[in-house]
């Protein structure tokens, strides 16, 4: 049988159905705001995490010193990893694959359209170790190149298309031929943003840009991801033994940093959603105060015939909990539907929506909604239980 105080609370809510419903709608909105924002943020984090996790086994090494070089009687500053440093990296990397990378940015022309993008110079043998070709074939050298999925799509490139490399006002620009189009990579955590780049053979690169035996970046693809920190420290010990020559990082540290940032953003947008719960809390508080004020004589009767203060408090807290539960349950259902729509609209896919770490925000939001109601009901309940029964009985 139902607790009489719970029963009284249910009847009070029923008696003031419209008022209770309106107060609960506030909680529904609050729960939906918090849950949906939380799910959106988590889906963003999961999406980014999955994209970055693809290259989590890669150690990136870049130069940490600036060298002054003289080319064609002009002094230029550049930072690069020289041959001896590369040898040190190779010797300390053990059986893991070492990929030296040349990189610059350039203008280019396709047909009559000018564009700008990155050019990576890679040993053709290294390319299949971390890039996959979607259309065409790998470059075998010469002036055959690969292009990223975004460039191919933006400039309508096909296998066999020609690209003039260099600023459009330059005479005798070298022309390369598209041998293959790469599969889209998304956010590249190994520092090779191939989607917007042209991948050329290393010999073609050094022939046109110089920098033979000087690399902009060296990636080490670790066979066993658990040994990544050992590989990093081995390289660090060998290469940076005297002075800091190279900067060593891996995708996991970037991943941690990006997911932490996204986590902060998620918390922030959830806090904005939480403002609606504050408004709802005020509404619940108001409804509870009205309920107490309207039932002063009833409270007087209850207290005068031997109801304990705690029991009166319980009765009003039950009322707040009922309002909270109605709001939380309806809010939870709405959160599922609205959250799904928001994630779909904002991210374009709902792959991660049904993951537990995403859906957990629905019960989170519901619990927060109920807790907010309980907190809002505490003062009115306390006020009711501390009434003077004589004064309460006299009130009309």
């Amino acid at each position, binding site marked *: 049988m139902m607790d*009489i105080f719970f029963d009284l609370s249910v009847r009070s809510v029923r008696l003031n159905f419209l008022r209770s419903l309106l107060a609960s709608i506030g909680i529904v909105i609050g729960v939906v705001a918090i849950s949906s924002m939380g799910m959106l943020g988590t889906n963003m984090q999961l999406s980014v995490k999955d994209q970055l996790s693809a290259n989590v086994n890669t150690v990136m090494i870049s130069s940490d010193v600036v060298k002054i070089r003289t080319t064609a009687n002009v002094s230029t500053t550049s930072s690069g990893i020289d041959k001896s440093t590369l040898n040190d990296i190779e010797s300390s990397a053990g059986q893991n694959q070492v990929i030296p990378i040349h990189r610059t940015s350039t203008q280019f022309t396709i047909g009559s359209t000018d564009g700008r993008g990155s050019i990576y110079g890679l040993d053709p043998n290294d390319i299949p170790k971390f890039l996959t070709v979607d259309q065409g074939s790998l470059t075998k050298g010469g002036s055959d190149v690969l292009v990223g999925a975004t460039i191919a799509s933006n400039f309508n490139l096909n296998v066999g298309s020609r690209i003039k490399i260099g600023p459009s006002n330059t005479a005798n620009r070298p022309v390369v031929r598209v041998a293959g189009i790469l599969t889209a990579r998304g956010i590249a955590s190994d520092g090779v943003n191939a989607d917007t780049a042209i991948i050329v053979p290393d010999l073609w690169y050094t022939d046109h840009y110089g920098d033979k035996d000087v690399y902009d970046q060296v990636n080490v693809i670790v066979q066993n991801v658990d040994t990544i920190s050992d590989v990093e420290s081995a390289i660090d010990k060998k290469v940076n033994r005297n002075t800091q020559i190279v900067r060593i990082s891996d995708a996991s540290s970037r991943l941690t940093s990006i997911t932490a940032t996204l986590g902060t953003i998620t918390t922030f947008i959830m806090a904005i959603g939480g403002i609606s719960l504050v408004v709802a809390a005020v509404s619940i508080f108001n409804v509870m105060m009205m309920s107490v004020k309207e039932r002063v004589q009833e409270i*007087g*009767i209850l207290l005068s015939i*031997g109801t304990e*203060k705690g029991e009166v408090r319980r009765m009003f807290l039950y009322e707040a909990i009922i309002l909270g539960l109605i709001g939380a349950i309806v809010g939870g259902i709405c959160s599922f539907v609205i959250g799904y729509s928001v994630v779909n609209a904002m991210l374009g896919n709902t792959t991660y929506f049904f993951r537990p770490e995403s859906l957990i925000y629905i019960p989170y939001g519901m619990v927060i909604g109920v807790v907010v109601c309980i907190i809002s009901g505490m003062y009115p309940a306390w006020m009711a239980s501390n009434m003077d029964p004589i004064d309460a009985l006299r009130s009309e």
Partner: protein
Amino acid sequence: MSQEPLIRLTDVSKVYHLESGDFTALDHVSLDIQENEFVAIMGPSGSGKSTMMNHLGILDVPTAGALYIDGKDVAKLTALERTHMRRDMIGYIFQKFYLIPLLTAYENVEYPLILKYKKRDTTGKAAEMLTAVGIDEHMSAHRPNQLSGGQQQRVAIARALINEPRILLCDEPTGNLDRKTGFQIMDILINLHKHGKTVILVTHDPKIAEYAHRIIELEDGRIVGS
């Protein structure tokens, strides 16, 4: 040696501190009420009848003096102990019935049992009590606003009696009833007195007061006749 009184007021005063100044509602009142007495308290408005009833019902404590109920100094009890004493020892019958509007007649009578035993009544005691005061099963499913004044007062009496209190405090119990129903209610009270209850009745009506064995007259917070 005389028997220890069930209720003893020793030099009890109650002073209310109002903005317009102090108001003495009870002024050095001393009174003994024995177990199974039928006492009527009479007096004009403002004479202190309600304050006296509030004290006897442990809803209030004296400013000065001492009030003993069943040998216990009420002022020295904790708030919870006073609540339990109200629940277990005293039955209230009010002029305005004061039934709980959200509960049915049956639930109103069951309510003090729930307070005492912390569970719903499964013994059928509440239904028996309602039958005893003349409320049938059909009527007991009604809410107070669906009952007549006389029916409401019968339910209130059943509620007051359900925990078998030793003291029945009746504040103008016939004040809101027609004369015939009033006398029917008084017959119930007389019967309860015969069964050992201590009945304390506040009334303006001398005809009703005649039912009591002792009449205490109050004026300006003092006992002027007993």
